[in-house]
């Protein structure tokens, strides 16, 4: 079975800016995959190459086994992209927009699926409203609908929940999860790291056009985050020996980032030696944000 997405040594420069630098990546069919990185890391460039909105300087990219340049028609039929920018055609209503997008893929009797998309994205009431009259969150949902209208095997969501309120975001993720459970491959970029942590089975982190981490979400959390503890001291003075692990102060507590659980004993020993009492000590749950920050600092 061909991978949903296969990228081999992709490179892309814009003038002197190296937007993608020897990126290789394979995403299996049915995965829920996260693509994370700070602004300018190359996430959108990578999506543009896959979608045919830009062409790689070197390397090859395939969607469901179809080369995005040589077999662009098959590759694009297999791909649905929710673009990051909030774009729309002001001439048309929501339903017209979805029908037209469906027609571009040769699907002209697609109203049952369009109705379902409208319902699942909570847009049924707005089906006949002009796109100009919709709020930002509603326009974002129409973008999601446009990406789904031809039932693509691979769905790329580039910041799909920006500007969408919490309740609708939950509904959107429920819908996307169901699509994933039905066999669709999902690739997600988001700035809400808790979303990626909750949804994605595997994550790639990009920085300056390079993949700096690629693993399952679970492994990333285990291997990269170490142990973070919150500790309240009496007297409220951190012994100098613990300064290298100190990352923040929260209220009356200090936050220490330790390499592993064994380091907790070394912290306690240092406190005893300095005659400082640990009034409270809490081991914090690792999250993707810590991993992300560490990775971006490290690489």
């Amino acid at each position, binding site marked *: 079975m061909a991978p949903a997405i296969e990228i081999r040594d992709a490179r892309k420069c*814009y003038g002197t800016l190296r937007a993608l630098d020897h990126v290789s990546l394979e995403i299996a069919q049915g995965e829920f995959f996260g693509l994370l990185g700070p602004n300018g890391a190359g996430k959108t460039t990578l999506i*543009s190459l896959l*979608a*045919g*909105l*830009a*062409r790689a300087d070197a390397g090859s990219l395939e969607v469901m086994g179809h080369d995005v340049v040589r077999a*662009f*028609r*098959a590759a*694009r*039929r297999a*791909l649905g*992209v929710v*673009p990051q*920018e909030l*774009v*729309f*055609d*002001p*001439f*048309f209503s929501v339903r*017209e927009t979805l029908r*037209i*997008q*469906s*027609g*571009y*893929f*040769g*699907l*002209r009797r697609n109203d049952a699926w369009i109705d379902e998309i409208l319902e699942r994205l909570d847009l049924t009431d707005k089906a006949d409203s002009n796109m100009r009259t919709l709020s930002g969150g509603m326009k974002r949902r129409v973008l999601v609908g*446009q990406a789904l209208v031809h039932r693509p095997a691979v769905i790329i969501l580039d910041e799909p929940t920006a500007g969408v309120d919490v309740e609708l975001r939950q509904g959107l993720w429920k819908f996307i999860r169901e699509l994933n459970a039905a066999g669709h491959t999902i690739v997600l970029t988001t700035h809400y790291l808790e979303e990626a942590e909750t949804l994605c089975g595997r994550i790639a982190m990009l920085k300056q056009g390079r993949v700096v981490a690629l693993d399952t979400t679970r492994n990333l959390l285990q291997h990269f985050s170490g142990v973070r503890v919150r500790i309240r001291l009496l007297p409220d003075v951190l012994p100098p020996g613990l300064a290298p692990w100190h990352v923040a102060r929260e209220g009356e507590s200090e936050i220490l980032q330790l390499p592993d659980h064994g380091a907790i004993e070394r912290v306690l020993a240092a406190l005893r030696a300095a005659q400082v009492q640990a009034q409270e000590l809490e081991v914090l749950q690792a999250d993707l944000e810590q991993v992300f920050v560490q990775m971006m600092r490290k690489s």
Partner: protein
Amino acid sequence: MSGFPTLLYKELLRFWKVTFQTVAAPILTALLYLLIFSHVLESRVQVYPGVSYTAFLAPGLAMMSLLQNAFANSSSSLIQSKITGNIVFVLLTPLTPLQMFLAYVLAAIARGFLVGLGVLLSTLLLADLPLVHPLWALTFAVLGGAILGALGVVAGIWADKFDQLATFQNFLIVPLTFLAGVFYSVHSLPAFWQRASHLNPFFYMVDGFRYGFFGAGDVPPLTSLAVVAGCLAGLSALTLRLLHIGYKLRA
């Protein structure tokens, strides 16, 4: 199934939704030209024997309106889509460069046709208009609309902002259509300007179209047909090439 019919439908719907602006307004403008010029020149100018100046002017104005609106349709659609960013919805699809080209150009021909037909029908209130060779008129209407539709695609792709497109329109399309013998026969011009007019491809579109009405023109219709068909072939090749390489559309 192909996405071509849908892109064509979308392009037709786009101008159909604003027909006052895209069809009625240019018809009114052409009629005002006709009223003013025919009022001033009707009794002073006769270009062809037995043909009133108003009748002579009508096909030229219809063709001028057809050409300008065919250009406006494809160019404005593309520049608006590029600037608002919704061109991405077309670029993400399996549409081929040829399908995109045909959809934009056919929609441009359709709008040009509607405007041109509107001008001609309105003119019937003011003058008797023969139609000696309807097929010639139809051929030049289609080819002229296609050339300007393709030129509109090129301009829409090339321009990064409305100002650049307006420059293209005001400094190239409008002068070339006005100087194409819409208001006069090029035989009435001094020798130098006659030769200069023969370098203007728009002249052959207008003259060939007018031949269809009166059976007379400044150059033989086959010459006009050869020039117009050659221009369309060259421009189509250029447009398809730009769409194929994704010039200013795909990074």
